[in-house]
């Protein structure tokens, strides 16, 4: 698979996972809006960052530039993924349903690992810049 195809495939996976976090937030909203909004914000920003990547790389032929833009989008997913891992099992998020916390935590772990791997691949395979 070429690099652009790889980025598109992993971005779709990230979008699905971020969408799941967003849905968890909406589901949690009626129970506890204060934690629900945090899940929703995390999921929405990760989702938005990745959705916007598609038009940004659509017409690009330069693999390095595709890598640079992918790196930017994946940094946001990575940072919020770490935030999710640090927060979703914290006492404030476990006031009611513990299951939602654990599911959101696992999703954050996967999002963090995937986005970190994407940055690694972009930097090593197409020599993208780690900071653009």
């Amino acid at each position, binding site marked *: 698979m070429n690099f652009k195809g790889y980025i598109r495939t992993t971005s779709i996976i990230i979008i699905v996972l971020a969408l799941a976090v967003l849905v968890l937030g909406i589901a949690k909203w009626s129970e506890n809006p*204060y934690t629900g909004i*945090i899940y929703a914000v995390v999921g929405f920003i990760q989702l938005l960052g990745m959705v916007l990547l598609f038009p940004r790389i659509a017409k690009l032929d330069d693999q390095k530039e595709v890598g640079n833009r992918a790196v930017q989008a994946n940094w946001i997913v990575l940072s919020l993924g770490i935030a999710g891992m640090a927060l979703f099992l914290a006492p*404030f998020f476990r006031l009611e349903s513990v299951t939602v916390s654990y599911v959101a935590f696992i999703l954050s772990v996967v999002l963090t690992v995937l986005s970190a791997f994407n940055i690694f691949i972009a930097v090593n395979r197409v020599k993208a810049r780690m900071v653009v």
Partner: protein
Amino acid sequence: MSEEVKKEEWPWEDAYGDYSMVPVPRHEKRSFSSIFYVYMGVLACIAVLWGGSTLGLQYTVKQAILVALIGSAILAVIGGLTAPIGGISGTSTYVNMRFPFGSIGSQVFGSIVAGIACGIGWFSVQAWLFGIIVHTLFPNAVWANVGVAATWGGLLMMITALIGFRGLAWLSYLAVPFFMLIAGVGAMIGVAQGGGFAGLMSLAPAEPTPIGVGITQVVGMYIAGGIITADISRYARKAFSGALAWIIQIIIFQVYMLSGAAILMIATGASDVAGALLAGGAGIGAFLMAILGQWTTNDNNLYNGALSFNTWLHTKKWHITLGEGIIGVGIAAWVGFAAGASMDPFMKFLTLLGKILPSIGGVLIADFYLYRWYKKVPFKKRYKGTPGMKVALVNWVGWLSVGLGTWIGGWLLKWGIAALNGLILGLVIYTVLSIVLDAAGVKITVGEHTINRKGV
């Protein structure tokens, strides 16, 4: 791009690393988002959350947001004026200071306000504060002893500063979205504990404070950052993207963070943000906030300090960063290990040094925008250096304006915002004196210094 073209376009030699003495070349310039993230990295610090918590203890939610907005708007104007100077010249604040102060002036003023105050002084204070916060969060752990935590925290902060701009940007990419979310979590904990938004709005402080006091606090908290924006904006691809990045981060995100911390404090009545977050159930998030918040700010302290020292210490920039860092960590650890020690006298001394900075900023703004306009220098050519160019050794009008601005604004005037007073006075005195004296044919500079390829 061929080597020949590069040499033709960029006739400098980066002898000291990270383009500390020479303009950043075109191929090393960064996107708007990179500049934005680095500015956000400086902003995303515990000090801003503490600033917000102070507002929370003095005002209602509406008043706290209003104060944050007005104070941030003033800072947006200041940074919005200084950032394009770096965007156009491509050089750091301290190199730019050669024009309004002369080459000796840039070394003296740069070293005092950025080198000694930020690079060593505030770096050690923040490393020590980091130790205090970690110890508050984990009072029984050996690794969280104030001195031990100040040491490993200080060393962490040194790493990214040693790498240079790339290091600052890398950390900011990682930490900024996280930090923004933590501020949001703090606000939500506050809203939840305050009995919802309606309940929160009805809470009022025991002793209300005049709005002006809060605005002074917000402006004073970050005016130094507003004056040295060129250190980062010199990397911007477009001349004004640094200014835009600064304005957005200050107006939107500083207000957001100040308000988030204020809401947390209003609801909980606690006195420290990290403790309130931990008590509110943020768990390890509170600990990571302490680490990333101090780290992203303090590496910038070291970075700016090394840039300023490089104007007279002609060695690789990372050597200076390392030296500053070791001294700073040493001070923080020594204070941390000495039980009951306080850094208050030291912080008062640093605050005193910081009083000079607003006037320096005012003179810099006046020289770049007004004096050069009066001298009919085209906007995009101002502060553009070339090897072999001659600069004054001393611009005595710049020195005098800083002296008068600092003395009148910092000590004589008992009203207004002290930092803003100093900035406006420096700006007005320099503009009037330089233009009047120039028109009268009086030389405002003394001596001459030729800039070589290394920017020295």
